[in-house]
């Protein structure tokens, strides 16, 4: 099988699902399943993403389906928006199936403020956030780490940050994995990765990472919104989208490199070097998962520090009306990660390694991993849109357990290359457009701004409508950006 643009056969299953038959290529071990509506499927067909969905179906030990969420786009190896599960006993883990930015994810912070209360102070708040949250290139993060401290971060994640005074213990209860994935082993992490991480903790980075102040614009599910503490239209909330920075990238690179050099030894013949994989039961496979956990924990500590910076900014601008304890964390999700979980496949409960690359866990009401205070409504799912348009909050639904290894989409999904996005409008035009929409922007690198233009992304509303209608997750609220901070 090649990476050439071939016509991928699609069989319509129902209104929101399309199957790529296993017969498409003899190397596929399972079929593919694409979540999309009629409009999104046309966009999806314009890049090579579906070929990648088929490629992922060739991974040793893959079970069920190679899945594509409606925000899918061409990635390296795995598509972004791709989900695949491999059997714990005889399957592989593919570091490219988690991505370079290990535990890139989103957290949502609520406040007791309404838009009317902040409207007069948007510039001041934007400046305060821009100063508090390091972003862009060439600056250090909020906290410089010693070699000993970074080891503690790797092992304890967000809990380390709370102990150091960044936030509260209750923040951990509403973070996926309590902000610390078990099994992290600093010995599995290279010195090169350590060097990259020492200066970067508590920084946003650049690219599509951001901090956004948003207003709740529409509520779809009043009961769920109230349970999440975001039940008021006009309420101000804050999103932070960021990952494990250079540290996670290096961990990923180290293990893709290792896996790639070993493919012949394992007898794997993969169409894309970026799909290189390690048997889950091998020492190196286990080492990757331990190193990945270190990367994930770094990212949770990172987002914990950034949230602290957000709370401080709000307290500085609004005083008693926005004390840190009155800005609770709603939830924090990963969207680049691998998890060992159990699902019923072909009538049997099987333990699998779920690869989520640009995809979010979406556990339903009643699932024991959902925080107790949300257990009657389901796990919050945070879906950032693009800069000028909406973001969404959903909760996981039962359909995800039955169809998609407990997974749903992660965001709007790119549809234009960075070059095309930059050609389509200037940063001046974009800033004017955003201002006209009532969005206050602070950005370090103006050149990079147009690459992240709304026009470069699919419409997030369409993406979440598909997962809602397909039963993977249920819409709770829509958020509109008011301030955007970017690197």
């Amino acid at each position, binding site marked *: 099988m090649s990476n050439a643009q071939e016509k991928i056969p699609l069989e319509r299953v129902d209104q929101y699902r399309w199957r790529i038959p296993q017969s498409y290529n003899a190397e596929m071990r399972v079929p593919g399943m694409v979540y999309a509506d009629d409009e999104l499927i046309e966009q999806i067909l314009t*890049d090579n993403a579906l070929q990648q969905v088929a490629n992922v179906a060739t991974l040793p030990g893959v079970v069920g389906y190679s899945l594509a969420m409606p925000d899918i*786009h061409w990635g*390296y190896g795995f598509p972004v928006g791709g989900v695949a599960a491999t059997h714990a006993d005889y399957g592989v883990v593919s570091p490219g199936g988690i991505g370079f930015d290990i535990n890139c994810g989103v957290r949502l912070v609520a406040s007791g403020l309404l838009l009317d209360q902040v409207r007069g102070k948007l510039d001041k708040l934007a400046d305060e956030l821009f100063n508090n949250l390091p972003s862009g*290139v*060439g600056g250090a993060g909020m906290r410089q780490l010693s070699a000993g401290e970074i080891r503690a971060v790797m092992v304890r994640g967000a809990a380390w940050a709370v102990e150091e005074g960044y936030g509260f213990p209750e923040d951990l209860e509403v973070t996926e994995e309590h902000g610390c994935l078990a099994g992290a082993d600093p010995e599995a992490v290279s010195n090169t990765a350590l060097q990259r991480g020492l200066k970067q903790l508590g920084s946003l980075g650049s690219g599509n990472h951001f901090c956004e102040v948003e207003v709740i614009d529409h509520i779809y599910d009043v009961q769920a919104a109230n349970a999440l503490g975001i039940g008021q239209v006009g309420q101000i909330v804050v999103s932070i989208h960021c990952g494990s920075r*250079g540290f996670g*990238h290096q961990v990923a690179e180290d293990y893709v490199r290792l896996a790639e050099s070993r493919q012949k030894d394992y007898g794997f013949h993969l169409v894309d070097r970026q799909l290189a994989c390690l048997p889950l039961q091998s020492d190196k496979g286990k080492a990757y998962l331990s190193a990945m956990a270190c990367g994930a924990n770094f990212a949770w500590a990172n987002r914990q520090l950034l949230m602290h910076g957000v709370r401080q900014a709000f307290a500085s601008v609004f005083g008693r009306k926005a004390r840190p304890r009155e800005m609770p964390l709603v939830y924090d999700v990963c969207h680049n990660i691998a998890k060992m979980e159990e699902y019923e496949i072909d009538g049997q409960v099987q333990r699998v390694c779920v690869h989520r690359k640009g995809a979010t866990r979406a556990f339903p009401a009643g699932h024991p991993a959902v925080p107790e205070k949300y257990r009657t409504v389901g796990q919050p799912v945070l879906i950032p849109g693009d800069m000028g348009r909406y973001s969404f909050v959903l909760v996981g639904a039962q359909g995800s357990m039955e169809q998609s290894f407990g997974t749903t989409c992660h965001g709007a999904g790119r549809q234009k290359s960075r070059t095309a996005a930059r050609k389509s409008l200037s940063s001046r035009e974009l800033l004017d457009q955003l201002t006209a929409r009532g969005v206050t922007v602070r950005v370090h*690198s103006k*050149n990079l701004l147009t690459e992240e233009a709304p026009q470069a992304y699919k419409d997030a509303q369409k993406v979440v409508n598909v997962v809602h209608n397909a039963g993977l997750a249920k819409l709770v609220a829509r958020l509109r950006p008011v301030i955007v901070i970017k*690197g």
Partner: protein
Amino acid sequence: MMSQKPFEVFEHTADVGLHAYGNTLPELFIHAAQGMESLMVSPEQVRLLVSREITAEGHDLVSLLIAWLNELIFLFDTEYLIFRAFEIDRLTETSLRGRASGEPYDAQRHDLSSAIKSVTWHEAAVERTAEGYKARIIFDI
């Protein structure tokens, strides 16, 4: 005298790619590095103030090229160094020793076009051509 351009950029949905060319392998490696650095900051803006010795290893030419470029990413990420000029002292199919010269990133003087975070393995290739060599690399930005 080169008979072909040193490199060209191509489009990729979420990231950016490069085709690099060289009459010889060392030239290919140098042009790939120049191409990658130029994606971040235009070479005219980069002064030659600092240089670093670079060593890299791989099991084939593709992994060696990726290792070489990743060393430059590492120096950008940890010391904020942007490079413009390169030398290759020694190059085999599996190892390399060379030098990179440039200066620390200066937000006042350098227009940053992209911050490259990783070199990916996706569709990475090094091929022989009539004029010498061609490489294809996609970057994560």
